[in-house]
């Protein structure tokens, strides 16, 4: 259960960025999580709910995009997606493949409200 640390990393980066822009709130945080990491979505949402109150991200939505494993064959150059097992080139059956995607732990973007945007939204 290292999701608490992961979410606190997400919040630090998001809240810092939002604060630098003088945002009044964060509406949404989008992250990318590789299928080959040990991250559990439910534990992420749980930690997010526990850690956001009192921050700019209070009430924000956490959107988790899962990135499937993808490797490139060192022998023939074929790129293919795969799970955790049997990472084998579908073209030449080589096991010498380099992982291209699947271990991501990335903050993709945040959506924030700026003071003037909020006023515009509340106006007639």
């Amino acid at each position: 259960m290292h999701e608490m640390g992961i979410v606190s990393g997400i919040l630090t980066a998001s809240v810092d960025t939002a604060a630098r822009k003088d945002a009044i709130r964060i509406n949404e945080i989008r992250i990318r999580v590789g299928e080959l990491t040990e991250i559990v979505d439910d534990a992420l949402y749980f930690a997010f709910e526990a850690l956001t109150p009192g921050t700019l991200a209070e009430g924000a939505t956490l959107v988790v995009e899962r990135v499937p494993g993808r490797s490139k064959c060192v022998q023939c150059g074929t790129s293919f997606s795969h799970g955790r097992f049997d990472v084998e080139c579908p073209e030449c059956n080589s096991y010498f493949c380099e992982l291209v995607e699947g271990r991501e732990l990335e903050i993709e973007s945040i959506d924030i409200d700026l003071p003037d945007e909020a006023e515009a939204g509340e106006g007639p």
Partner: protein
Amino acid sequence: MKIDLSKPILDRNERFAAENRELFSEHGVFVLDLLASPGAGKTSTILATIAALRDRYRIAVIEGDIASDVDAQKIKAHGVPAVQINTGGACHLESDMIRRAVDTLEIAEIDLLIIENVGNLVCPTDFDLGENAKVMILSVPEGHDKPYKYPNIFARAEAVILNKYDTMPVFDFDEDEFREVVRRLNATVPIFPMAATKGPGVAEWAEWLAGRIEKQRAAAGR
């Protein structure tokens, strides 16, 4: 307003890991991150490795545990420098903890640095410490089906030690099935059957490790 960040979540950990790796390669130190369940024989494997290689290489150990310094004391009793890191409940080591521990060692006096990670098969796999290889120990009593349940650690390991191999006759361990599932997760990883406290298999493991240490030294021009 949407702001693109495209930033690693473990940014800080990755920065320290890169710095550690740079420091280790500059000094030609080979760094091993040893991962296993509690009780698989991490400390016994370290002691056996020390006994096998101490005449050829200068060795130091970083011990990661949630609490206590019993493991570091065991290593020090053998005359090998050891630093204890207590994570205070955290389930894995992070690269800045390694950096602080390394700062208390004489890095120029080390050829092999062994990091004993916290006994856990899940969390440590997502954290780069700046090591040169993650090695996984599975002990026979844990069962041959463990790679199905904890695939990531087997996929990331550069060697797998099958410890307590001498207990094979009393456990229902299917070695063929174990080797097959490990192969499906990590086709080229070597598997070293070993009885760390008794001796058989230690020499083969130590030779593999010595090969990696030599490579690292050669790259640093030592």
